[in-house]
């Protein structure tokens, strides 16, 4: 286990050095990249994805993938938007609770189908991806929630706060990241998630309730996607049933995988995921600075996912060879 830990640390060092090199290259090509404005843009771009990535990371460590999070985000954003139209005075804390609950229920539905019927999670969530997106259209009637429907105190949530006017959305997502780190590293439940991901059968024999752990991961993943729905409404000031959250799941998965979380489960860390998302955020802001058209962004993200998957597989292959367990 100590070798494994060391290895993980090296992995995070790898992504960290990629970030440093990228930033230096971008700064040399165009010094405008090192201004406060672009870094403000980076840190405003990531909270939404970072919060979702925490949930997705837990699910991937647990050997599953949830690709329905974009639709969960859209659904909770639509629900809270419609509530804002009815009750403009809805407090921020109450709306956080509501979005979290909506997301939790949808995540638990995913988790229930996966654990009860023992089907691969990507196929299940491919189904619920469309199912939830359809619900978004049914609930909203296809109408968009406009800027003036979203009350002032919700919009200001992503612009300022009591602390040096750092956007509250950033402080809040930092809190979520720290709590996730504590849970994953220092709680029994967190260690059970890692154990389930590394070997579900052994975890079951060890007395871990694998079903419960899996349900927990899917529930948290849905809940954080729901919270991200409120972030979205606050940050962008509109919710469109056909646009909100479409394709965001692939950005989140890209960030988690390049952060060193193994797709075969059982390994991955909050720090790595944070660095992975940070790299994506920097790329997002650096593209216009480096005069690369925005259309290339998706291709670059796709390339990053494929390269990260290939690297991950090569590392696993090397590790198996080192430990002498390679016979297949």
């Amino acid at each position, binding site marked *: 286990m100590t070798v494994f830990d060391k290895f993980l640390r090296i992995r995070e060092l790898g992504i960290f050095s990629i970030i440093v090199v990228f930033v230096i290259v971008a700064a040399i090509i165009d010094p405008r990249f090192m201004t406060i404005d672009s870094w403000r843009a980076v840190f405003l771009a990531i909270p939404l994805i970072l919060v979702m990535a925490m949930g997705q990371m837990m699910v991937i460590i647990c050997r599953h*993938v949830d*690709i329905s999070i974009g639709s969960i985000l859209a659904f909770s954003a639509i629900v809270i938007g419609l509530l804002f139209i009815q009750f403009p005075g809805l407090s921020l804390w109450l709306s956080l609770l509501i979005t979290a609950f909506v997301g939790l229920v949808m995540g638990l539905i995913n988790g229930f*189908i996966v654990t009860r*019927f*023992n*089907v*691969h999670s*990507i*196929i*299940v969530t*491919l*189904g*619920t*991806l*469309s*199912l*939830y*997106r*359809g*619900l978004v*259209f*049914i609930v909203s009637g*296809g109408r968009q929630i406009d800027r003036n429907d979203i009350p002032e105190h919700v919009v200001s949530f992503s612009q300022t706060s009591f602390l040096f006017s750092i956007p509250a959305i950033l402080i809040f997502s930092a809190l979520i990241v720290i709590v996730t780190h504590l849970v994953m590293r220092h709680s029994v439940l967190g260690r059970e998630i890692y154990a389930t991901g590394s070997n579900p059968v052994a975890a079951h024999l060890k007395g871990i309730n694998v079903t419960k752990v899996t349900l927990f991961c899917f529930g948290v993943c849905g809940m954080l996607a729901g919270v991200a729905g409120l972030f979205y409404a606050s940050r962008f000031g509109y919710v469109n*049933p*056909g646009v909100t959250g479409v*394709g965001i799941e*692939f950005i989140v*998965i*890209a960030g988690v995988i390049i952060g060193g979380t193994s*797709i*075969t489960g059982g390994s991955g860390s909050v720090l790595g995921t944070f660095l992975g998302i940070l790299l994506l955020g920097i790329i997002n802001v650096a593209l216009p600075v480096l005069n690369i*058209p925005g*259309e*290339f*962004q*998706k*291709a*670059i*993200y*796709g*390339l990053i*996912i*494929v390269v990260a*998957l*290939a690297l991950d*597989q*090569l590392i696993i*292959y090397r590790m198996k060879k080192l430990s002498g367990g390679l016979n*297949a």
Partner: protein
Amino acid sequence: MLKNISIYLSENPTLRYWIVRPEWVAVILLIISIISSIQLSPFFADLAFIMDSATPYVEYGLIAIILTLIIISGEIDLSIASMIALTAVIFGTAYNAGIGMPMSIVIALLSGTLCGLFNGILVTQLQIPSIILTIGTLTLYRGIAQSLASDFSLGGYPSWFIGIDYRYVGIVPIPVIIFTIFAIVVGFFLSSTIYGKQLYLIGTNPQTAKYSGIKVNRIKLSLFTLSGLVCGIAGVLTTSRLAVARFNMATGAELEIVLMVMLGGTYIFGGRGNIFGTFIAFWIVVILRAGLNVARIKIESQLTILGAMLIIAIILTNYIYSKSQK
């Protein structure tokens, strides 16, 4: 009475083999959907109407047939919809660059084949699980299509190329004929050739297949490549039907294609399934979509029903297989 039947079936394995099969669920669903659609609107009793409703789904149907083979061999390809868009965009770009129609079609098919080959190499050589790899290439191929075409619609094709869905033999549109012939050929390949049997063995137990001398990796590689090629064909067909190529065409098509395979009773973990089921499931999706359109349910809201059907189809198929194995 149900109990009696199940006891009777368990005493007759051959009979059980023929009766407890997921394809029959597809056939029953098809009959139910036809009857309820005719109740909904008299148009459904008209064969020409159903044939016309089928043409937009032929591109998906072609891919669903190849995807059936891939899933039987224990893998999956989710990058199909992005490959349709990418090949269509490459086709449009090539034609607008002025290299002529035959060359453009060749380039589109070739690029599809290369995309599939890329998937196949990564799956077989690096042993990356195909379900997660093709999620990555799904983003990659769609991204390349977007980089190539930006937000433009690539059009300007000659009139003989546009509108393949308006060419008929009798009342049957040409795409439906292509689909049917393709289904028969692949169905024959799967059920009656030694390669077909090898696919089932690979899906049931890849290790055993390998040790019995089957070239597992080579067969999987050729399946992924074939999937790319068929996506290329589908991309050209779609461009012909819509008269333009855009980077966002066939968005979300993987849902419908996987739904066709799953409704047809192919086992998601590999080793079981057949083309007949997928062929029937194609018509279920066609009639379902047409029925929902006639009932004036919005395209976006239809997603709810399709998504729910996918999940129910998987659960049902798993249930039937677990029964038939007892």
